[in-house]
């Protein structure tokens, strides 16, 4: 099969292609931000689907947490289902530092990352003895105890008990970013202008846009670091463990160290995701981190594609948007209304999970890559 375009790695053409793809992505990202900052809904039939930045920000948070799952499940091959535990842990630490010690949000990451990393390593220790299904059991148990831990009376002072912990933190865009001016400029584009709302941005919209960009920057850094990790020596060790533990050990890989590091990295990412989540939502409440969330994160992992970094982004979007859209679907032809009320989102995610595992084991990102290969082929001269 001949692709329509063939690019060689290292050539100018290839570089231009990379730069233009990245520029296009950033442009689309910014345009979406400005377009959906205030209204952001699409109407299909009589149903209205929200696409506001709140959901996209949540998608970023879930995406980072799913990235963690990619490291431990996708690349190291350990069936760990307990990501919601670390997601919640990061959220609660960030909320506690911001609310009780009035730290700025970004600084809390300095505590969230190491503490979640350590906790992940500690919980990774039993995984040295416990394998496969048993690990799935244990981590599922771990995920289900998180809400009961934060609801403990003795921790009430820190966690706010069943009511949750309000952060009360307001994001304020720095004045050197001309958000208002850009919005103005976009609104003046003929024909497309109305998509970007009208009038200057309110304070709330500005802070929302700022959060969107800030979270995206944090997430980009995480993705960049993980993509480097995967390509480097520890990453190759992880993949060797996934493919065959015994032969990895025989090849001189330190199983214990690699596994615990993989758990630590995954948990740290879960913590960052949780911190982003609580920064967006403004409250950490126990039921946002139940075992159901752990399963939803697995759904994101599988639907996006196990063992692909892009899959984490797709998975985050799926998790943030599909349950929400499902619950705002009020009428569909030929479906009785009764079936559209209740937890339809969970139903759809469950069905997606089963169907994708059956028919598209690589998830959406593998399918996208296949389509891309039809058009653009990248050759690596060093491999010839």
């Amino acid at each position, binding site marked *: 099969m001949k692709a329509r375009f063939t690019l060689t790695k290292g050539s100018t053409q290839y570089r231009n292609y990379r730069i233009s793809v990245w520029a296009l992505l950033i442009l689309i990202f910014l345009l979406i931000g400005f377009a959906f900052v205030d209204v952001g809904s699409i109407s299909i039939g009589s149903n209205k689907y929200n696409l506001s930045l709140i959901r996209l920000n949540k998608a970023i948070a879930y995406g980072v947490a799913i990235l963690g799952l990619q490291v431990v499940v996708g690349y190291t091959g350990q069936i760990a289902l307990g990501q919601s535990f670390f997601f919640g842990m990061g959220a609660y630490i960030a909320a506690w530092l911001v609310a009780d010690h009035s730290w700025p949000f970004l600084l809390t990451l300095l505590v969230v990352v190491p503490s979640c990393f350590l906790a992940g390593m500690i919980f990774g220790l039993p995984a040295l003895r416990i394998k496969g299904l*048993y690990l*799935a059991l244990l981590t599922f148990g771990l995920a289900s105890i998180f809400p009961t831990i934060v609801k403990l009376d003795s921790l009430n002072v820190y966690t706010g008990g069943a009511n949750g912990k309000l952060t009360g933190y307001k994001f304020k865009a720095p004045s050197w970013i001309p958000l208002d001016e850009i919005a103005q400029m976009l609104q003046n584009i003929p024909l497309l202008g109305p998509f970007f709302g009208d009038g200057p941005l309110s304070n709330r919209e500005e802070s929302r846009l700022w959060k969107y960009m800030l979270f995206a920057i944090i997430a980009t850094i995480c993705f960049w670091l993980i993509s480097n990790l995967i390509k480097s020596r520890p990453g190759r060790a992880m993949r060797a463990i996934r493919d065959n533990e015994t032969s990895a050990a025989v090849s001189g890989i330190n199983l214990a160290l690699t596994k615990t590091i993989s758990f630590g990295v995954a948990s740290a990412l879960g913590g960052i995701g949780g911190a982003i989540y609580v920064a967006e939502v403004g409250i950490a409440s126990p039921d946002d981190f139940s075992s159901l969330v752990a399963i939803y994160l697995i759904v994101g992992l599988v639907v996006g594609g196990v063992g692909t970094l892009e899959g984490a982004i797709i998975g985050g979007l799926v998790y943030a948007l599909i349950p929400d859209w499902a619950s705002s679907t009020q009428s569909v032809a030929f479906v009785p209304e009764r079936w559209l009320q209740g937890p339809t989102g*969970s139903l759809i995610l469950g069905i997606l999970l089963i169907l994708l595992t059956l028919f598209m084991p690589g998830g959406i990102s593998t399918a996208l890559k296949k389509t891309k290969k039809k058009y653009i082929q990248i050759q690596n001269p060093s491999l010839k």
Partner: protein
Amino acid sequence: MDLFLQRLFDGLTNGSAYALIAVALVLIFKATTLINFAQGEQAMLGAFIVLQLWNWGLPMWIAVITGMLISGLLAGGLERAIIRRFDPADHLPLVIITLGLFLVLNAVAAIIWRYDPLAFPQLFPHGSALTIGNARLSWYSIFAFGSCILVLLLLHVLLNKTKIGLSFRAVSSNLESSRLCGIKVGPTLQFGWALAAAAGTFGASIYAANPVLQIEPSIMLRALIFSITAAALGGLDSLWGALLGGLTIGFIQSVLVQYIPFIPNEMTLAATVAVLLIVLTFRPSGFLGTKAVERV
């Protein structure tokens, strides 16, 4: 002393219910070395079917048996349609499939019956059978425990004295060799799934028939963790171990946690997960399970 006895009785009650779900988990583990995370939800759905049949006017025990048959058929269908397509040795896809089933079954039950708690038929006589001081042992506890033993005896006979039981044991001991002996592996595993679902439905019905409980779609969420731990504690491939594990978890929950001052009451779930951790780390074969030997 009264309090202690009362807690012991409570432990017996809860433990029997956990044991019944654990039995279902063990049946599937024996057959396919798979932990069915959807087992609790399958059982919950089965109990709802029982409730619906009862509401339509069937006598309650007929409703229970019909419900068991229906959920057994459904589980057999699920096994044929989905589970059999996968390689039993590759765990990740199967775990993911059962998690998917977990979400779907939970959502279906919530869509059909909503989240309002509903009263379940009282399968057993009211009142207490035995009163020692202030401690009461209710008829419910006795019957729950009794039916747990009954189910295990029936399963024991089924697996050890019948043809299908023999092929089930053959498949669970060595899948490849039993295929070579001419055992139809697929239908046997399907039978295992159906049997497990029926046992689970029975367990959930008993659990929901507790006079202090009502049935609602999330009834098995917590119970699943307790049952998983019970199954692991008893040894994942041992039926009688499931009973032992269930009772142990029931007693840990109602007796031990109450008497250890530094564990707050709400920590029963966490204590259970800690037990799970200890068992899996130090004795993965549990009380009565077969020791796994790994060939390197």
